[in-house]
């Protein structure tokens, strides 16, 4: 251990703390950067306004669900209901926004549903001490069932102006993502937000230190639900309508993105920027493989290799 007296002024603590957290994900950042460059070379249109807009739009929902999963995993939880929750969010958006309460009413319904589902799940997992993986598996059937009740088949509608705003040739998705990341940083700068880490890694110690462990975990589930239905709203806007099974694939993808980004399963390990980078890699991979002209078989093989490689290579450098 280096026993270096701290010469830095005490005022600047926040930024050094942030910088130290990058250490674990640096190599992933490099991989992502390499893919970004490859994408830019293969498709120069990426740097045009519309190319950039479309690219961020296809990444955006995955980024949201990766965050939704990561925040749970940071507290030592997990959700297999993310996909179903995305579907429910999409369905609610597509059935309410064209109705009497309009876009604002619809957005409120989507947000409240997400918060409510998340809080309920969190309550069951945290207060009743049931294993999150099965609770959320059961939850995925219940939530998915609710989506089917609301919209038994794809349909509904999102006002065109909203679709154009969120998923037209505008950088709205990117701006939204920046705002959400800022909000996350803000949340992490609150006592409740930061206690996510303590509550995830060392709940007993955190409790003894006076951290409201249960509240922090339930809040994480609620935020996760909000992010998931939010992703659903965006997907609905992006597609102009609702589909009760549109979110299915997001469950596993969100876990893959989070783990790829260095989020551990035991709680308290990893950072949100890592999870975001993980989701970006998953999204980039699809487009890059297209432009490289991979056949489906090659796509499957390459996808597996990239995922393993991104996780294994940093491990090797540690040894």
């Amino acid at each position, binding site marked *: 251990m280096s026993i270096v007296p701290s010469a830095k002024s005490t005022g600047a603590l926040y930024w050094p703390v942030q910088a130290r957290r990058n250490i674990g994900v640096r190599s992933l950042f490099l991989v992502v950067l390499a893919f970004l460059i490859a994408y830019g070379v293969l498709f120069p249109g990426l740097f045009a306004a519309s190319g950039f807009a479309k690219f961020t739009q296809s990444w955006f929902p995955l980024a949201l669900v990766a965050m939704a999963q990561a925040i749970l995993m940071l507290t030592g939880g997990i959700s*297999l209901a993310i996909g179903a929750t995305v579907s429910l969010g999409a369905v609610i958006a597509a059935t309410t926004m064209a109705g009497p309460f309009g876009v604002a009413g619809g957005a409120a319904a989507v947000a409240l549903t997400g918060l409510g589902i998340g809080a309920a799940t969190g309550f*069951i997992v945290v207060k*009743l*001490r*049931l*294993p999150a*993986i*099965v*609770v959320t*598996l*059961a*939850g*995925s*059937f*219940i*939530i*998915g*069932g*609710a*989506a*089917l*009740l609301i919209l*038994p088949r794809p349909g509904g509608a999102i006002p065109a102006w909203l679709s154009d705003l969120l998923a037209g040739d505008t950088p709205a998705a990117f701006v939204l993502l920046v705002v959400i990341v800022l909000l996350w940083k803000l949340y992490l700068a609150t006592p409740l937000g930061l206690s996510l880490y303590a509550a995830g890694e*060392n*709940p*007993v110690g955190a409790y003894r230190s006076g951290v409201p462990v249960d509240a922090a975990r339930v809040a994480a589930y609620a935020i996760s639900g909000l992010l998931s239905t939010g992703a659903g709203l965006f997907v609905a806007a992006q597609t102009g309508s609702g589909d009760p099974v549109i979110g299915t694939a997001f469950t*596993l993808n969100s*876990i*893959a993105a989070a*783990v*790829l980004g260095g989020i551990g*399963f035991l709680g308290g390990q990893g950072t949100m920027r890592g999870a975001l980078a993980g989701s970006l890699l998953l999204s980039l991979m699809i487009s890059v493989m297209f432009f490289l002209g991979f056949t*489906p*078989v*090659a*796509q*499957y*093989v390459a*996808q*597996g*290799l990239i*995922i*393993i490689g991104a*996780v*294994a290579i940093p*491990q*090797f450098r540690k040894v």
Partner: protein
Amino acid sequence: MTAWNDSAGGKRASAILKSRPFLTLAIVAAVWIVASFVSRGFGAYGHLRYLVELGAVIGLVAAGQTFVVIAGGIDLSVAAIVTVSAISLPLLSWQADPTGLVSILAVLVLTTIIGVINGLGVALLRVHPMIMTLAMATFLQGLLIIIAGGSAVTAENPLVHWLGNARPAGIPAGIILWIATSAVVLTVMHATPFGARIFAMGANPLAASLSGVPMTSTTLAVYGISGFTAGLAGVLVLGMNGQGYVGIGDPYLLASIAAVVLGGTSILGGLGTYAGTIPGAILLVTITALITVVNASPGWRSILFGSLILGLLLLSGREQARR
């Protein structure tokens, strides 16, 4: 775990009665009894026998999954392995193998190797099990594109057909296979040093390795076993359906995990028993069958299914505090 305590007779009996496996079994029985009141034919002997036969497929997949989960991992490639097994068996059948045994063995070797490769990734590349097995499932999809649909000629494998359809002494062969597998699994898990190593590895890998547990070989063995039992399930499911197809294994991924956890094995590793997974598997097929015979819209059915699992989870116990 309590069922495997070494306490004296009476204490032991009460421990068994209080144990998770027994509790799960009691819940299965309760669901069966209630369901046969709701629906006339549900409790018929033939139906129960069929449910157990269906449970055998989940039970076989979940056998390997139990090993993996106890060892602190998870195997997301089991569904793809079941499919690979069911699809490649006809391709590997040939004339010089009249009983079909050789082809079955060949397939099981193949799926075991797939499992061992998972283990290599986890143990040597140190890729998280969830990621490693997810990537493996992706690879296997690519493999399936190549091999699926190649079985232009239905290759009749007598042993596979027997497994899927025969009923020696009135008991479906699949159930017999399951019972035999369960006996081996329970013995290996609870009565051998290998089993003890797996529990140790799952509860605290660092302490296990410092205690001399051979981590790499144990990990390879655990994932190999999972590949093997998933392969076996693929053979059985092929026999029961007469035809393999892409997607035949899909239902068994979440089902195997759910059976393991409903049976009381901790998803965090280190605690559990296959004795709980067995009723856990039967519980799942029972609920699925129950949902099928209930007349409701797909949405309500899905909600009912989820609520039942949640309710039973509440009954069958909570995760213990850890760390």
